[in-house]
């Protein structure tokens, strides 16, 4: 078991997905919005990055757009694309609440996924875009993969700090009020509609950048990477981390990714036993998710802490 490699991968992927979980934390735990389609914003960022960095189509390539621009520009494009996608999908859906919002965001993500699978001109269909530029740069004595992990971690920490700052201000309290009782919040002068839209849009930006980083890391932008399963993984990470705190969102993601990577890297004897282990990992994760949702251990602990103060 190559533990150093596992740690590096966990830090990298954990940070990238941690950003997505942080966005869910902002949207759901504080904003009260259930987004079951968050993978779509992630995918938009990834594809935008790929399209902006890849060379123009030639020969047998079926995709139509490739700008060949430098990666910083492409990351900005990833953020902008996710923001735009959030603005477009947010406009009709933010009027909805609860399960209807969950379903609509879910449906939008599936529509987008289906679109990616079929529209070869944009995303090259099921094959995806494979020439994603990965800036090769060993920083002096530090190997490329560490630089990469560092960059991902930097993005996650930056996102965490920005969100935390926002939530610590009265803005966070207003969000909690809206989440707890929208009618009462309106009666207290909170601009509910505007704030929900702001949260939705702001949280999309880091998700887009994370998507771009993900495309960089995998050098791929492929529909199979962006299925509903991604949405469920970050939701599970959110719940396992205790839903409410930003630190929990990060911890939950890192823990989950660690679990996944360990199972993946474990030297199983047969392909079959590796598959079973992967399925078992799914099952255990799902059970933990259900258990945490039911017993809410984090809320109990928080309450006990509050009571003893």
């Amino acid at each position: 078991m190559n533990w150093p490699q596992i740690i590096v991968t966990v830090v990298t992927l954990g940070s990238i997905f941690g950003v997505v979980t942080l966005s869910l934390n902002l949207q759901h735990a504080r904003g009260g919005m259930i987004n079951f389609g968050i993978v779509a914003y992630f995918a938009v960022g990834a594809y935008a990055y790929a399209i902006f960095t890849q060379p123009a189509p030639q020969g047998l390539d079926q995709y139509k757009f490739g700008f060949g621009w430098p990666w910083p520009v492409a990351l900005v494009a990833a953020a902008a694309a996710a923001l735009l996608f959030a603005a477009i999908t947010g406009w009709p859906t933010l009027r909805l609440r609860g399960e209807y919002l969950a379903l609509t965001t879910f449906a939008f993500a599936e529509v987008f996924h289906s679109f990616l699978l079929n529209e070869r001109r944009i995303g090259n269909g099921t094959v995806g875009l494979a020439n994603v530029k990965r800036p090769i740069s060993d920083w002096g004595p530090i190997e490329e993969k560490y630089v990469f992990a560092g960059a991902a971690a930097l993005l996650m920490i930056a996102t965490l700090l920005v969100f935390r700052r926002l939530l610590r201000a009265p803005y966070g309290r207003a969000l909690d009020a809206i989440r707890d009782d929208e009618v009462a919040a309106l009666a207290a002068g909170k601009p509910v509609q505007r704030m929900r839209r702001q949260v939705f849009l702001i949280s999309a930006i880091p998700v887009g950048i994370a998507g771009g980083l993900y495309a960089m890391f995998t050098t791929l932008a492929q529909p199979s990477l962006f299925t509903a399963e991604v949405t469920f993984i970050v939701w599970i990470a959110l719940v396992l981390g205790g839903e409410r705190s930003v630190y929990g969102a990060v911890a939950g993601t890192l823990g989950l990714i660690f679990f996944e990577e360990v199972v993946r890297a474990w030297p199983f004897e047969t392909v079959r036993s590796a598959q079973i282990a992967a399925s078992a990992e799914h099952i255990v994760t799902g059970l933990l998710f259900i258990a945490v949702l039911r017993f809410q251990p984090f809320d109990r602990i928080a309450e006990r802490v509050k009571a003893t103060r």
Partner: protein
Amino acid sequence: MLFLQFLTTGVVTGCFLILATIGFSLTRRVEGFLNIAHAELLGVGAFTTWWLNADKDWHIVPAGVAAIMFTALVGLFVARLIYDPIRERGPAVLLITSTGVAFVIGGVIDAMIGTGIRTLEIGLATSYEPFGIRITNYQLIVVAFAAVVSVSLALFLNRTRTGLAIRAMSVNPDLAASRGIDVRTTSRATWLLSSGLAGLAGVMLAVLATLTTDLPFAQILQILAVAILAGLGSLYTVILSGLIIGIAMDVSVYWIPAGYRPLVAFSLVILVLLFRPEGLAGTRAA
């Protein structure tokens, strides 16, 4: 002519969707939440049938029946173990929990079945060509089942005590309870019924399609589409809605590439949710 062919397959698809969604609609109305794991129950039904039929050499009919009963029990077990204790937490929490349940059931199926495609040991489909339109015997079976189930269910819900109790609960659980209806037993009956129906749909899926372990979950989107379009109305809206979406999906192939079929269903969901969340039923939820 091609159009009529698509129309016909659309009806078949619609009938499958009806079978897949009736149970889902039932739990939505009686238990009050959208059970995402319902699609995985289709998988339980489908793969149990496959295992008994292809692996254990059972004839398809007893295999199917056993699969249906097993799925009904699984659904009931899950409901009692996981959903009942958290019922008062509200539909949103139950919805989120059901995605976890789907994850778990999907994982179990994955672990036991593995990757690769699976097909049943049934003869090749025989196709008929009435009026130049091709239809296979298996497709006819799906349509037949949809019709039989619809009629039986209608009779059950209108003529039997349990059925009437279920109807009462789906309209107003508190009122039903105060009228002396045993809520717990009715709830259990609902779960058995709806999971059994999911099992039946799973058997149909196994008969019609080549099975892979991710196929069941892919159905949830069509099921959601049918359920949302149907709204909280009666059985008839589900039937109508299933046919509409099935036909829309297949007929759309006339104009747009076949890969977009699911997209047609999801787009319908979005439109319904945005403009008429009550669906065809037209009555707001209590």
